[in-house]
């Protein structure tokens, strides 16, 4: 693989990372909670897709249409029944509860599915590429993932900026108590936000399953990639998340070109470099916490 090719692959990978990161970033933006279970929930979505494909023979990309609403519901219920009760008592409870949740979900998956890696087969799309130049080709699947990421980001932006509920979400994240005075029930608002975040994680999870193999123990690495993309890109900025994801992806693929074992490590090192030099990220939203 040539260097340019590696870069292009990295950019496409960035789209996938942006998908991971959007959910994490959304929850933090609305409720100031870092959901430590985000990675394992993304894996859960992949397993849900696996279950559906196993029992119905549907193409995983089609199964996404079921996975996303299921994940939304899981997110809504999780927020209403558990995470809402951790809010307002400081930084520790949400972190510790989501951490506990991550442990529980990971081990449930281990128990039910065993530690084996598995994959989702999406058929032809995995093998077809677009030939750009004589030495450069882009796979249809990575390109699709990237485009879906862009579309979802645009949709999220529009949702926040233009819709009534999006406005209510922004108001709640500014001042939840004052939002109550506007007839906004913040328990419901937070739950919808979590539902959206997990819905996006659902999309990401299916793509992970199709693009690579996945297993119950892979939650943490997805969480870390999501987090690195958010920090590199800059807190509070949806588009920064895409840029962050791309930079991370490129760092990883270029690193892997140097030495195969350096895929993850080069991503971490670039992340640490950004943290050292520009801790607020590359495109932080002005005034974002």
């Amino acid at each position, binding site marked *: 693989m040539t260097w340019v090719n590696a870069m292009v692959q990295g950019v496409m990978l960035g789209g996938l990372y942006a998908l991971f990161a959007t959910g994490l970033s959304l929850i*933090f933006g609305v409720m*100031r*909670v*870092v959901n*430590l279970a985000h990675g394992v929930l993304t894996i859960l979505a992949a397993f849900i897709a696996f279950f559906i494909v196993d029992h119905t023979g549907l193409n995983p990309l089609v199964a996404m249409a079921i996975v996303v609403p299921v994940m939304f519901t899981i997110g809504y219920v999780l927020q209403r029944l*558990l995470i809402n*009760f*951790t809010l307002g*008592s400081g*930084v*520790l*409870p*949400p*972190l*510790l*509860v989501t*951490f*506990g*949740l*991550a*442990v*529980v979900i*990971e*081990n*449930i998956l*281990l*128990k039910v599915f065993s530690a084996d890696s598995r994959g989702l087969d999406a058929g032809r799309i995995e093998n077809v590429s677009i030939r750009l130049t004589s030495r450069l080709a882009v796979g249809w699947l990575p390109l699709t993932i990237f485009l879906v990421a862009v579309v979802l980001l645009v949709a999220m932006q529009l949702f926040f900026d233009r819709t009534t509920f999006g406005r209510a979400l922004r108001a709640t994240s500014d001042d939840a108590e004052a939002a109550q005075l506007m007839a906004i029930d913040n328990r419901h608002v937070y739950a919808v936000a979590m539902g959206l975040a997990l819905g996006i994680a659902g999309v990401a999870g299916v793509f992970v399953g199709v693009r690579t193999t996945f297993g119950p123990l892979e939650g*943490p690495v997805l*969480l*870390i990639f999501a*987090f*690195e993309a*958010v*920090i590199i890109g800059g*807190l509070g900025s949806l588009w920064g998340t895409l840029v962050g994801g791309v930079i991370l992806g490129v760092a990883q693929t270029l690193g892997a070109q140097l030495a195969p*074992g*350096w895929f*993850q*490590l080069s991503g*971490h*090192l670039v*992340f*640490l470099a950004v*943290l*050292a030099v520009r*801790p607020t990220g590359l495109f932080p939203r002005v005034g974002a916490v």
Partner: protein
Amino acid sequence: MPRRVVVERSTFASRWGMAVAIIGVLVLALAPALFLNSVLRTLVQFFYLLALAQMWNLLAGYAGLVSIGQQAYIGIGAYGLLFFADRLGVNLFVSVFLAALVAAVLAIPTAALVFRLRGGYFAIGTWVVAEVYRLLAANTQSLGGGSGVTITAAIGIDRTVREYVTYWIALGLAIASVLIVYYLLRTRLGLALRAVRDREMAAPTLGIHVLRAKVQVYVLASTICGLTGAVIYLSLLRLQPDATFSVNWTVFMIFAVVIGGIGTISGPIVGTIVYFLLQQYLADLGPIYLIILGAVAILVMVQAPRGLWGLVLDRWNIRFFPVQLRVRVKEDPSAASGPNETTEPERVRGRSVDG
């Protein structure tokens, strides 16, 4: 009637508790003569888990820092031990302390990086750092690489001697971890921490340099975690990056502290005991065991956020490790009128402090 105002720190429970503790420590110190080696090994495990729990509690319960990357220092301690004992030929037991020094040195630049983040992102940042160390260890063949390595320096030492010395070092570590936290909280730094914990925004107005206090605590806790890591692998002897740098160490720390009682000194002791007992009986269940642990931790966090010891404090107000000062008003016994009376202070309502 003339009155004397007395400011004191020790409580009824702490004075009795100290007597019991001294006896307990003596018994434990003599344990090698009293118990089987297998019992000693179990105790060693208990001691190093207790040290880890105390350190995580110091970070989260007192400095408000949720770190899910302390396993980095466990690994650094372990690989430091390997490096000094096996690669450099230094005495095995001395290497344990040298490894702790390495942890201390590495904690400083780490702090410089991770403290650029706050709250939950700080937490994940610490995890990324641990991952970096794990990957570096896995990619370094001279340290055993991905498949791991055994500390061979231990082979040259008589087995019983090694187990006894390991035991005493571990016992010392456990006691030290408790005392470090206890005495730290009684210093100015400790007072600063508690002020930061209660009202971070107001603390700087009292002249408290919040960031510096947190960094100091982070480096201290990480050094002890490094020391503990060296002790762990002094006992286990077999290193493997995925296990040595595993986040499961953090899972334990969080569990023990949350269930035992965060922000108290007795809490982590209780939590480690609970974890230990559960582990003895449930570890065979594999993933189910961890599901139970995680679920219990979640439940405790939501329903009884101050843990088991917090419940005890609320109910009976027993303080073995009193940190706060109390004021008692004593009637002067030399006064001519009236009998001697001392009045116990009314319990201060509101949030209980450490115990």
